[in-house]
């Protein structure tokens, strides 16, 4: 065990003994996400570097503080990628923060979410123990799947020290189409296409325009272009479009859009086939219809009620009051299990308290 990890173990034990809250932090690019952070800063960037990467194993293992950009550049050298296209939200994003936030980008509906690619984690729990779960192999059912539990837990269960992720080859060919159509028509078409063997890898509808990205074998992309119709977007413009969507730098997401008094950005996760939601505000639809971004001044209750009725959930993604619940409230039996799990990993409640839910 390195000196640094031993220091961290000591610090966590001391914090647990004293009941001192610790705010685990990487590059700070996702500090806006979740409820307001609290506690003494616990910076993990000192624990950085790729531990193991062998392209033919389709696995990369990296320490939590490794910059996400550096990791993706390394994969790109071997024509591989993190297929869930995680948003960076800034140049300083780390892989630890990426896994803790659990966010996935445009390719998610086609390739899977971040949690689908997590193979193993090494964490520091609230007792100061270094624990390893999962591993570096594709298939592993020994013990409970704690690695995926850690993904998206916003640092409330432990300090992520190291992660192993499955990686995939970059597609041989890629092309983007732009089609003019209404919201209802876009949702219908996306679901129809989703049921056919088409190489769809991303979709985005807003303002009467549907953009779809096709990725795969040359022949498959070529024949899908003909079949779907619409206008082919030039490669540079297409790359810029999908990067802007992934990083939320386009006008729809821009800070200016949230400056209006009381406007918040909501992330609505619903069944892909749900008809237009007809909520007040502007929408951008991704993931074949399963993810709807809503810029709105509507009351949280109205938005939550509408998404819950569809079997989905709503997150107050940006803006609004970060001291209220930003994630969809859980039914009592699930909240009980959440509290017990939190206590199992972090009995003194020192890691990112209240970041996910109040009291967690």
């Amino acid at each position, binding site marked *: 065990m390195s000196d640094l990890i031993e220091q961290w173990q000591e610090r966590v034990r001391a914090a*647990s003994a004293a009941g001192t809250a610790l705010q685990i932090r990487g590059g700070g690019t996702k500090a806006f996400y979740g409820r307001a952070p609290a506690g003494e800063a616990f910076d993990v960037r000192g624990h950085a570097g790729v531990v*193991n990467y062998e*392209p*033919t*194993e389709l*696995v990369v293992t990296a320490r939590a503080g490794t910059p996400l950009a550096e990791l993706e550049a390394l994969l790109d050298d071997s024509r591989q990628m993190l297929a869930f296209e995680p948003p960076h939200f800034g140049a300083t994003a780390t892989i630890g923060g990426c896994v803790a936030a*659990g966010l996935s980008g445009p390719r*998610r*509906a086609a390739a899977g*979410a971040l949690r689908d690619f997590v193979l193993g984690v090494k964490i520091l729990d609230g007792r100061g*123990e270094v*624990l*390893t*779960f999962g*591993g*570096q*192999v*594709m*298939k*592993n*059912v*020994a*013990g*409970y*799947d*704690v690695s*995926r*539990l850690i993904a998206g*837990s916003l640092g409330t*269960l432990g300090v992520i020290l190291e992660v192993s992720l499955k990686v995939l*080859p*970059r597609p041989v060919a890629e092309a983007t189409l732009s089609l003019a159509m209404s919201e209802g028509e876009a949702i219908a078409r996306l*679901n*129809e296409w*989703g*049921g056919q*063997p088409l190489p769809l890898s991303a979709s985005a509808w807003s303002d009467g325009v549907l953009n779809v990205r096709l990725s*795969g*074998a040359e022949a*498959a992309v*070529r024949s899908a272009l003909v079949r779907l119709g619409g206008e082919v977007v030039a490669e540079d413009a297409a790359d810029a479009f999908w990067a802007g969507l992934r990083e939320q730098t386009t006008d729809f997401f821009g800070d200016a859009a949230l400056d209006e008094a009381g406007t918040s950005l909501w992330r609505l*996760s*619903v*069944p*892909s*086939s749900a008809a237009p939601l007809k909520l007040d505000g502007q929408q951008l639809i991704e*993931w074949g219809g*399963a993810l709807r971004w809503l810029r709105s001044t509507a009351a949280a209750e109205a938005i939550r009620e509408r998404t819950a009725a569809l079997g*989905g*959930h709503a997150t107050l993604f940006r803006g609004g009051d970060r001291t209220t619940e930003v*994630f969809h409230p859980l039914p009592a039996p*699930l909240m*009980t*299990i*959440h509290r017990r*799990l939190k*206590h*199992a990993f972090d*009995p003194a409640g020192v890691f990112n308290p209240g970041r*996910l839910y109040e009291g967690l």
Partner: protein
Amino acid sequence: MNFDAEAPAPGERDVDFSAVDKVRLVEALARVLPAGALRYDAEDLRPYECDGLSAYRQLPLIVALPTREEEVVEVLRTCHELGVPVVARGAGTGLSGGALPHAHGVVLSLARFNRILHLDPHARTAVVQPGVRNLAISEAAAPHGLYYAPDPSSQIACTIGGNVAENSGGVHCLKYGLTVHNLLRVRGVTIEGEIVEIGNHGLDAPGYDLLALITGSEGMLAVVTEVTVKLTPKPQLAQCVLAAFDDVIRAGEAVAEIIAAGIIPAGLEMMDQPATAAVEQFVHAGYPLDAKAILLCESDGTPEEVAEEVARVRAVLEAGGATEIRVSRDEAERMRFWAGRKAAFPAAGRISPDYYCMDGTIPRKRLGEMLEAIQAMERKHGLRCINVFHAGDGNLHPLILFDANEPGELARAEDFGAEILELSVALGGTITGEHGVGIEKINQMCSQFSRPEITTFFRVKAAFDPAGLLNPGKAIPTLNRCAEYGRERVSKGHVPYPDIPRF
């Protein structure tokens, strides 16, 4: 906080359930279940005494066969109140003894939950009860050009509830994922009788990823009563490439070269010469018998995609020293290529009175080392072993051949298996890729995980099942078990693989 003074996590020590009163339990369950939903005479219990791992057998006290979720709730509440262990059971096809009954407990069969509740071809989802067979979902989806992707070899019989419990895989999971990648939502009941909805009708859910936690939890966290699965568009075409190699290591390298070329095949399987010989006399698949190993590499998609990928695969295999390459010319030939691989288990049963199937996963690059080590183990234990692999994802299924009627052979086969699993861990892999720990591999859990990690598993279990009544004694070894196992390993004169770096 002083953690040294912490009490052990619930379940961490062995619990004695021998005080369970069968008469009282039958009376209590008869009050909450309709007539015909309870079995307690020895001859009625016999069909439940084991699952697919028939070396372990145990009669339960009672078998309960509810048909409605309210009945499941009542059975669990009753067992919770009386402190009775509960083992949930689907079709009983599991290979690790996960559904082995508890001597003082109830087997809760979900066999009567056998309806597909809703299939939405537009949203590509199906809501099914846990007792629905894996293949039945694909059959129901077929008219819409859809199917349920995970295809464990037992798919004709195994149930989706059991698949959730084991996180089942299959031959196509490198490209299409395991059960955990193909679920949206699970509805279940805790031992306390609370109904929980885990996951969502959308692609994600708020809070901790409990869906991942419950998938592969071997019936130890909650009892599943409803499952929402994703359906996948059926590929238009599939084609299979069969390649022969005169050296097993070369075949292993060819697998890595296919991946390095940026190809993720729909299936990538390998068989060694003894396995090929065993199946050939059984199914006449036309395999080259002089090859030291054969690879089966499947491409699927549109006809254009498949043609492009098959050409790339062929080029890699030629450059990689394959001695013979055949590409299936039609569906009949493709099925024939696969027939041999799929018949590996029955073929082992034909050439040997008994066989023991292992399930370790290792990094692909260590395949050669593993095969050489298995050859040495064959000599050491005086038993033969034939090898089939899900080579694409490093999942090995060595089949150890033995005769249970020969004194000592079962014990030797178990030692042989334990040695393979421990080497899997030492090579950076895991003791189980897709069959689960159950009772079979519970000792080897002590090799793969440290004591604090195992304690964490018990704490996770207690978050769902504080009383420790769901499938106790499975999957996660108690303190005593690991202590005894450690003594046994050392007393045999060595610590396994002391010189191999652990990571």
